């Protein structure tokens, strides 16, 4: 027994030591001001080890330093989808709004509520509470026995959690149905056509709420409440995960 405990202590120490090693190559590049190099190395890290909110936030910072506002905002917004409390992404978005002139729609109460746990967590809670509530009703009927006290408590708890998760899911849905403007100067058009009359302008990095798509365009609403159509390729949806799309790269035929 004592040998097992010693082995576990050694493994834990080794893991902790691995976590606290010095800065990575990408972090050193970022600190030196080689932001392009840092972006490449972090992207490689994401491809090889998987994506995290921390990595996305770091890539967002480096992209912002390179002047690519659209890519930076995409990274930060997606980092917040993974972890609504990611400090780097939150600071980056606040910085972009205050100093960079980027506009972002204000969050509704349901969206704020949904950010308490994150969309995935709320969905898991909703699914689990649904099943518990359902089975707590169905199983006693199958067994032809009245529900006991524990079953009733489980049923009540599950229904409460389900009721709480419904507005959170609604908020998460509306929170995720946004996109970031990727082109430097984009006109909101009155109609979803190539010759649609420009009615308003949005800049790269601005976050807009997206509506229905039509004729290669998407209906969007800006932070200021202006509504119009933009071309599909001019914005990138926050919903989707991963690194920002490379707009310079032509799509495969």
């Amino acid at each position: 027994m004592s040998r097992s405990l010693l082995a576990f202590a050694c493994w834990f120490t080794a893991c902790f030591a691995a976590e606290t090693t010095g800065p990575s190559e990408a972090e050193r590049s970022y600190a030196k001001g080689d932001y392009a190099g840092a972006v490449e190395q972090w992207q490689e890290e994401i491809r090889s080890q998987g994506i995290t909110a921390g990595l996305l936030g770091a890539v967002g910072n480096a992209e912002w330093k390179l002047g690519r506002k659209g890519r930076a905002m995409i990274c930060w917004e997606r980092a917040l989808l993974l972890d609504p409390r990611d400090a780097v992404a939150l600071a980056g978005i606040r910085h972009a709004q205050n100093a960079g002139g980027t506009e972002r729609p204000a969050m509704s109460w349901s969206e704020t509520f949904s950010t308490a746990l994150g969309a995935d967590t709320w969905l898991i809670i909703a699914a689990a509470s649904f099943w518990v509530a359902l089975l707590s009703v169905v199983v006693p009927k199958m067994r032809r026995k009245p529900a006991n006290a524990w079953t009733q408590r489980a049923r009540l708890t599950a229904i409460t959690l389900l009721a709480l998760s419904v507005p959170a899911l609604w908020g998460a849905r509306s929170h995720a149905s946004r996109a970031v403007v990727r082109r430097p100067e984009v006109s909101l058009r009155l109609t979803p056509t190539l010759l649609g009359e420009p009615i308003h302008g949005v800049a790269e990095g601005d976050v807009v709420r997206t509506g229905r798509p039509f004729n290669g365009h998407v209906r969007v609403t800006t932070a200021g409440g202006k509504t119009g159509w933009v071309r599909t390729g001019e914005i990138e949806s926050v919903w989707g995960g991963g690194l920002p799309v490379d707009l310079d790269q032509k799509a495969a035929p």
Partner: protein
Amino acid sequence: MRRFLSILSAALFVCVARAEDRVSWEITPRVTAPGQPFRLQILVESDVVLGGAQDVGKEIKPPRGMALRLSGQIIRPDSTEATLNFSGVAPDQEGEYIIPSFNLRFARKLIIAPAVKLIVSKTVAFRRSEQARAELEIPQRTFFVGELIHGAINMYGGDSEGVVASFGLESVAEGFTFQISSDRQTLPAEKGQGLQTTFDLTPIREGESEIAINGIMLIRSADSNTFSRAGRDRPFTFRRRISVEHVPEKGRPADWSGAIGQFAVETVQVSNEKPEVGEPIRLRAVLTGTGNLDRIVPPELASSEIWDVLPAVERRRHSEEQRFFVYTLVPRLPGKHATPAIRFSVFNPETRTYSKLEFPPQEVTVTGNAPVKVDLVSADPSAPVGGPSKVSGLATPQPRQGATFLHSKGPVAPLATSRGFWSGNLLALLAVALTTSILLYAGYLAAHPEILIRRRARARVSSALTATADAQRRRDAHAAAAAAVGGLQAGCAALLGAESEAMTQSDVQRIFPDANRDDLDVLFGHAHAGRFGAQSGHESTTAQEVALSLLRQLRQLL
């Protein structure tokens, strides 16, 4: 013979002879005073139906100083005659003026109008003040390339005529841009009654050139009434020689960016006099005056240790002759500071000198603390890459934090986009629903056993019907009776809730009271012949038919 030849030649002459077109003109009055309006009428007689004349205004080239315009033509569709009326204004100089010969392009024929002579003499009594007249108002000096020249056409009413409208103002000049700034405005009170059209000219190259401005004004006579003509048009034309130069190089400041005119600093103000460190404020400077406000390149303000300057957003108010320079300033340090001064140079075309204009700095009190980790210069995404390392307003990246629980290598899509999640839940829901349904149905059947008993009895009755029919075809009376009795016993037992082996003829009669007891006895006797001995064949056949009928009825009851 001679007589015949003379008649023939006369006939031939008549055939080949071509009628000549007759064109005459008349000027009213024949001799005019300088600047006096006149009317020119041209009468055409031809041998063909003429139709309407086209492009007469373009063909006629009046002499220098004379304004002339086609004011109407009188042509009947089936007539060989046409009348063309021109209105004009005589030149200001005395002399004989020849309007050169010009073409009249009718629909059916081209006719050449002869040259027209107009005599202008000061001996003619003419009160100029009675007539409506137009005057060109433009500065008399040397202009400069890029300068904005304000000009005007003043159309004055006379003692017996008033100006009611004007149209068709155009400039024929090379080396200038021409733009009408206001059309058909009422003349200022100090200039009298009439209309004014103002325009802007901008020279685009140096040298001597001539501008020509043409237009038409619509006049109304004082003696006109409701039933007279609504008005008459009177053309005007002006020609001016203009000298254009480049602005002098001598004394030209390095920061001169094309401002030509007379400008003045109106106001300069900040949006917030007490901002916090890092809080953007707006510096707005208003420039007024006359000149090429549109062409002024906004003065650049460089960022400093105290201020971070973001690109200017400017506006222009045409009607107020103002130009706005707007800058966004972000204070970087706390304390009392002055905003950067906005300076630029102006060339005055009147005095031919350069001067400097300056919007004075504004005092601003910046509150807050000096940033330790925030450097707002990096706020501008267009800042050059690779410069000295600056502290950023962004948080320090922490790429090792926020590891996902499921540590995916690919792009992390939200769970709601996962098809597996939704299909798994749906399948589980279907399985639960199916299991629940099966259990509920089984419970129902357990609570109502008669359902299964009747179902089994119905199956046995059906098989008994089939077996009885088969046995009849084989002429096996015993087997037919046994099958029929078995079916009757099974069906009656299900209806009476008893065992089928215990069913007798009396039980069958409880279900079918109208059944013949004798037939049932015969049937049951044949079925149990091994135990009680065989019956006659005829009676057995009748009993089998009765049994088949009862079995069919029994199947319906079940």
